[in-house]
Structures are given as structure tokens and as C-alpha cells.
């Protein structure tokens, strides 16, 4: 009797979301040596997820991860199905009936909310919107950001907050030869922002920045990074944190913060100020954002378990624009279990469960940010996807063998009137973007509207 993955009975897998986790899951399945047929389904006509749409345009080296994904895509087992949204163009139930296994690797697409009054004022934005906008993501093409006020505030102290602050801080000359979207470059050229606050709830020893990202602020042409030295006085528990092995990265951050504190005023037109131990209480303004009111915090608790407690004291920062970057949540897909509290798909080592801690749903898997929450960097998702694929491969004997796979998918898409984009069509889009960037000295000029991409794909 044949079993799934044999020469005569290919293991048919749909992977939903073509970011790093989707590609690493694909790679792990191919490397299993089994006979596999993988359909990587993506809602945009373009693959690569946050490597294309999240990684900042001035970090081209990180984007070279795409070279690995391109190689994966050359395998005969791989098939790209772009421009197909699960839950709209095909239901999750249909997918489950079509494939032996379905793996959701669709990331965390929405920002956590501050949950404070005034959050919806004009001028209050999510980091996701801004990042998507400067990276040319079609969902955010038509967002506008009023950069006419001199002060901007970024809430959060992770790498996305650093990206947002850095893009606001850099000159157009520093960005114009990157793959930043032209509409963003044009808007940033008119920016009057001079002061950028990057605000953390806890102290300098708890900031989540990668040290490398912080160091970049010391190199920006027109912007001085600064911290009031008083803010770098650490409590004993924080001292203990940075002097332990687990606090190695935080110690480096604190060292760089000291360089910020000691930075000379050389007359650079912009300043980026990191400030700590502040939680936003409310955003105030008439028609649009005018100021943020913060409550000062103090830390309490054991080393590595310190939490921020409000002191009742308030401070204000007058500003015209604010970005929140305090974490991300997945977006639920109809028909797929979802754990609201964490914004993730409930799972056990990548096997989707009916609810958090519930029973395993046969044939459904997950990997990446939607599996474990928005932590870690590109490579973290490789280890994560490998774990999920190991779970899948261990379950082969229990999967329902009677599944049509690709043929069934194409029938359903045809019935639903959906025209997908395959990898060869994507390569046409890719080549057209690179060609459009060339005269501007950019690695590419992205298409920022789905219709434009589809015109090239189908041309």
C-alpha cells in the first residue's frame, strides 16, 4: 500500500502567506525528500511578505534573504498562487478539503492598540500604515501623513519603532537610491519634522531595539540622536539585568544610549530623542492631534520581571503626528481557530488546535508570527517553520489521503472567477520594477497598486 509522500502519492500542501515563514516551511518540506506538491498562496501578486513590505528600504542587505526564497521557488515541487485571499477568494474549509495539509504562515498584520482616549484623532497612526506606505504596499498606497508639524512621536522601543524614527530622520539624499516608494520619498522631501521622540514604557535597559539598529542613528547625516543623561540612571534591578548573560544585548543598547547622551550638537537640523518610563495617557487635540499626555512610570519587580507602574505624575509632548509601534496581532481568518488575547492561531508545536489548549485539528498547521506572536527576526522564522513541518511529517499516517490538491484549487478559483498570479508572472512584475528603478539609481521602483501589477502579469 502506498503512503503519502511516496512516488505514487504526492503529499499535497497549501501554505498560506509567502513571507519568510511560508518559504522556510516550503524549503523544509522539499528537503524532507518526500514526494511533495506545494502551493504557496499569497493575497498580493508579489511574494516575500515583510522582507519586501516590512524591512526598511535602507536595509538592502537584509532583503538579500530573498535570494534564498528565489532558489526555493525554482524547485519543481513549488508553485506560487498569488493574488488569492483566503477567506475571500477561497474559504478555509475548501482549502482543508482540497489539501492533505494546510499551513497558515500569514503573519501579524495589525498593530496593537494603545487603548487610550484620542487614539483615533487625525495625526495618530500605526507604524504598520507608515511602514506599508513607504514600502509601497498596495493596502497603504493612499494613506497620507501630515509631516508639516515640527515634532513627531513614536510610541514603542522595538526595531519597527527604530525604522519609523530613522525614516523620519534621514534626508532624502540618504533614501533616494533605496527601493523606497516614490510617493513616500516625495512626501518625506516636504517633511518639516525636526524633533522625533521615541518613547518607551520601561527603562533604557528594557528597550527592545537591536543594538545594530541603534548604532545606525549615530551615522545619520542630518539628525543627532540624543538622550537626557538623567534618563540613563539605572535602578539596581536593571543594573543586574544588563550585567547578566541574558542581558548582553541590553547592555550594548545602554552603552549606545550613553553615546547618544554624550553626542555633540553639531548643528544638524534634526534631533531624535529617546525617552523612557512614560506611558501615554491620552492624545489631545481639536480637529487633529496636538499633544500627547504621558504618565511617568517607575519600575518595580525582580530583574527581568520588572514592570512599569504609573507614578501619577504627568508630562506632555506637543506634536503633530504620532506612530504607535507597541506590538502586532494576527488577523483572524474565517474558519480558522484564533486566540484573540494573543492575536495568534492556537497551536501545539505548529499543529493548529480548536482553541487555546484545545484538541488538535487534523491537517491544519501554522508557523511564523501568526503561530508564536510577533517576536524574533527573519531567521527565527526558519527554526519555527522547521518545527511545524516536523509536526506535519510526523502526522502523515493520520492525514486523510483523498485530496485533489492543485487541480482542486484551480477548479475552485475558476468557479469563483479568481485569476491567480503564478511565479513566472511575478518574475515579469519583478523585472518591470527593477527596470523602472534603474534610471533613478534605485534597485527597483515598486508597483504600489495591485491593478498595475496585474496589468504587467497578464500583459
Amino acid at each position, binding site marked *: 500500500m502506498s503512503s503519502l509522500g511516496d512516488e505514487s502519492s504526492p503529499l499535497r500542501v497549501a501554505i498560506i502567506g509567502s513571507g519568510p515563514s511560508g518559504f522556510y516551511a516550503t524549503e523544509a518540506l522539499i528537503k524532507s525528500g518526500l514526494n511533495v506538491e506545494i502551493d504557496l498562496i499569497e493575497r498580493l501578486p508579489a511574494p516575500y511578505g515583510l522582507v519586501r513590505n516590512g524591512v526598511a528600504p535602507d536595509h538592502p542587505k537584509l532583503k*538579500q*534573504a530573498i535570494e534564498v526564497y528565489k532558489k526555493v521557488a525554482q524547485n519543481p515541487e513549488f508553485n506560487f498562487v498569488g493574488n488569492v485571499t483566503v477567506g475571500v477568494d477561497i474559504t478555509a474549509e475548501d482549502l482543508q478539503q482540497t489539501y492533505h495539509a494546510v499551513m497558515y504562515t500569514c503573519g501579524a498584520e495589525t498593530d496593537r492598540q494603545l487603548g487610550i482616549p484620542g487614539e483615533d484623532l487625525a495625526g495618530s497612526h500605526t507604524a504598520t500604515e507608515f511602514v506599508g506606505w513607504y514600502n509601497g504596499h498596495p493596502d497603504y498606497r493612499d494613506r497620507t501623513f501630515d509631516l508639516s508639524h515640527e515634532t513627531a512621536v513614536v510610541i514603542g522601543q522595538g526595531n519597527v519603532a527604530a525604522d519609523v524614527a530613522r525614516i523620519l530622520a534621514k534626508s532624502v539624499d540618504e533614501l533616494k537610491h533605496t527601493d523606497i516608494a516614490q510617493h513616500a520619498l516625495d512626501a518625506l522631501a516636504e517633511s518639516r519634522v525636526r524633533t522625533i521622540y521615541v518613547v518607551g514604557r520601561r527603562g533604557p535597559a528594557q528597550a527592545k531595539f537591536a543594538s*545594530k539598529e541603534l548604532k545606525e542613528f549615530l551615522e545619520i547625516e542630518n539628525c543627532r540622536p540624543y538622550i537626557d543623561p538623567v534618563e540613563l540612571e539605572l535602578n539596581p534591578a536593571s543594573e543586574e539585568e544588563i550585567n547578566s548573560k541574558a542581558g548582553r544585548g541590553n547592555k550594548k543598547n545602554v552603552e549606545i544610549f550613553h553615546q547618544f547622551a554624550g553626542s555633540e550638537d553639531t548643528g544638524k537640523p534634526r534631533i531624535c530623542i529617546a525617552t523612557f518610563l512614560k506611558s501615554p495617557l491620552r492624545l489631545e487635540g481639536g480637529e487633529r492631534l496636538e499633544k500627547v499626555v504621558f504618565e511617568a512610570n517607575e519600575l518595580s519587580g525582580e530583574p527581568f520581571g520588572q514592570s512599569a507602574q504609573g507614578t501619577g505624575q504627568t508630562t506632555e509632548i506637543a506634536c503633530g503626528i504620532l506612530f504607535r509601534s507597541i506590538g502586532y496581532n494576527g488577523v483572524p481568518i474565517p474558519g480558522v481557530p484564533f486566540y484573540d488575547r494573543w492575536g495568534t492561531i492556537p497551536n501545539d508545536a505548529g499543529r493548529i488546535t480548536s482553541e487555546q489548549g484545545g484538541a488538535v485539528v487534523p491537517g491544519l498547521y501554522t508557523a511564523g508570527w501568526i503561530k508564536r506572536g510577533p517576536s*524574533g527576526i*527573519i*531567521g527565527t522564522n526558519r527554526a519555527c517553520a*522547521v518545527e511545524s513541518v516536523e509536526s506535519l511529517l510526523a502526522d502523515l499516517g493520520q492525514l486523510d489521503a483523498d485530496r485533489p490538491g492543485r487541480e482542486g484549487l484551480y477548479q475552485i478559483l475558476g468557479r469563483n472567477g479568481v485569476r491567480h498570479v503564478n511565479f513566472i508572472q511575478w518574475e515579469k512584475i519583478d523585472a518591470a520594477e527593477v527596470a523602472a528603478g534603474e534610471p533613478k539609481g534605485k534597485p527597483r521602483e515598486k508597483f504600489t497598486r495591485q491593478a498595475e501589477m496585474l496589468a504587467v502579469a497578464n500583459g
Partner: protein
Amino acid sequence: MTTVVTENCKGCRFTDCVAVCPVACFHYDDEMLYIDPDVCIDCSACIPECPVEAIFEEDDLPEGQEQWIEINAEKAPDLPLIEEPMEALPEAEQRKADLGF
């Protein structure tokens, strides 16, 4: 800039780093791992994974370890690639203890 495997890896070769490398830039010989600087994308994912703190960003190397930049660059391309973690060397735990970790 690149990321560099240094002295502490010698005799350990734990390979935890390999699991999180997004681009498969690690190579190995009988003693340790090396990073191919032409492939590494400087994401630093590997650095906190190392149980003996053998991996550093180039501009963050401790004094006296600078020679490893060249050693990694020279050795890596001709050695076999490692894409999945493997067993550490037999004496790895002892070496780790000797190194004070």
C-alpha cells in the same frame, strides 16, 4: 560589515546558530563553524543563540579576535555547508564549562 565566528567555537561547535540562519551561510570543519561573509546578510539572529558567545558583529569583536574576520572569509567558502543543527563535538560541554559558561 559581516558577522564572525571566533575562538570559543573551537572544540564546541554547538550549531544552535545554524537553525536561525535565514540564508545558510555557515560552513564547518572538524573543529568549528565559519560564516561566509559574501552570503551573510548581517541580521545577527545567530549571535544570541551561541551558548559560548563565539559570534560577533565585525565591528563589535573583542580585542585580540580581529584575525577571525579573515579566517572566516578564507575558510568558509571551501568547507561544506551546514544548514541544520548537528550534534556538538564530544568535548563541547567540558569546553563550555572551561570557558565559564
